[in-house]
């Protein structure tokens, strides 16, 4: 609405540079949030301007991971929105039982909280042994943390409560060992998980999924990019496959809404219509 400031221009140039030099494409992310986080990065990393930050990132590869930690929002929790997981248990799992094997994609898995939530749910529901999980993200540090599956114990109290509210049949403590203030989650939960660097913006579909869980990632994209990603999900899903998104996200405005039907409306679980 107001005119472009020098700072806005610098931000566009930085995003262009990141794309052209490193192939990280943030150009169609929701701008208000990207701008806040870049200004935060500039301050906290000690640069006088966004241009100075840009120069540092281009000339010093070791700056890139730092900047990625600002540009990608790494906030997550296990069983975030317990009603989503409860809906998966009650309204999706019965369908998944009918397949001999399953592929599940956690897109934008951050540090793995969503992956372990699903793995625990799949174990409790007797599906884990026939499932391959694909956990993908663009932030290598987050993927590494996801692979380790270690979380601060003080967060685990919330995770435990969420797990209980999601209809968990067991105690969350069955799945981790506590160690020096950290909870180390059981390796067996990720034994059938493929972790990989995959961008929803620039990369293609890679397998045919029965369930895609992609929560709180679409909100960081602008509308055009949301459309692209929803179409990628449609391409990646088996006939009648399921898509779960964040509780404040919606396909309602998407150009590809007609490829999905609502399966559990309140919990934003959709189903791919037959193609």
């Amino acid at each position, binding site marked *: 609405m*107001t005119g472009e400031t020098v700072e806005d221009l610098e931000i566009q140039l930085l995003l262009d540079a990141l794309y052209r030099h490193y192939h990280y494409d943030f150009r169609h992310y929701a701008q*208000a949030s990207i701008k806040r986080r870049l200004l935060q990065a500039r301050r906290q990393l000690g640069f006088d301007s966004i241009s100075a930050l840009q120069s540092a990132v281009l000339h010093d590869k070791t700056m890139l991971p730092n900047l990625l930690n600002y540009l990608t929002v790494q906030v997550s929790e296990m069983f975030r929105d317990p009603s989503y997981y409860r809906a998966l248990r009650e309204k999706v799992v019965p369908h998944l039982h009918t397949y001999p094997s399953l592929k599940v994609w956690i897109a934008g898995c951050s540090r793995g909280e969503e992956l372990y939530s699903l793995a625990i749910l799949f174990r409790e529901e007797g599906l884990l042994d026939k499932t391959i999980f694909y956990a993908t993200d663009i932030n290598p540090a987050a993927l590494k943390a996801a692979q380790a599956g270690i979380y601060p114990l003080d967060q685990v109290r919330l995770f435990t409560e969420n797990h209980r509210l999601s209809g968990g049949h067991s105690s969350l403590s069955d799945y981790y060992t506590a160690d020096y203030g950290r909870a180390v989650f059981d390796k067996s939960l990720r034994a059938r998980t493929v972790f990989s660097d995959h961008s929803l913006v620039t990369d293609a579909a890679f397998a045919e999924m029965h369930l895609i869980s992609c929560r709180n990632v679409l*909100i960081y994209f602008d509308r055009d990019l949301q459309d692209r990603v929803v179409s990628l999900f449609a391409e990646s899903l088996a006939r009648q496959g399921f898509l779960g998104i964040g509780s404040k996200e919606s396909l309602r405005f998407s150009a590809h809404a007609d490829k999905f039907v609502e399966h559990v409306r309140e919990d934003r679980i959709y189903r791919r219509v037959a193609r």
Partner: protein
Amino acid sequence: MTQQLIAIGASAGGVQALSHILPPLAADFPRSIVVVVHVPPRQDNALVKLFSEKCRMQVKEAEDKEPLQPGTIYFAPPDYHVLVEGDGALALSTEEPVNHSRPAIDVLFETAADAFGPAVTGIVLTGANHDGANGARAIEDAGGVVLIQDPATAEMAAMPEAAVEACRDAAIMTLDEIAASLAAGVAE
């Protein structure tokens, strides 16, 4: 004139304060109003229900990428920040809490100032923390107007006091004066 935006932040005691300001506004009030109230994460948006019953304007929960419409009051959903985009749409985010709060008033105010510049009015109401002070300052710096509930009349003075301290020429008002000023701002 560009579309004008009214951004309101409230914390402890906020529901009562908002009950003074919002219900009198006419159904066709020609501005968008975006409200952040600090609420616990897991509460369903009781505010929307409460204020739909009391208000003549349309009241709803803010949705991601929703274009702002005049005559509408948007409440931040629990556990999400609300941001204003340059194209005049709202966006949601699960970024870290700011001032221990998500939604945070500063996030709304700063992005509103950035998107709408002088066409923003920011209003800081009662609360027991410092959220909103930086954002109110950002609104002033962008040429917008800041109204602050007189701390002496607020149920909790800390939040309006912090905003008064951060701003140079905010107007300090009672709730009745804030309500009157909103109506008058439109009549001009």
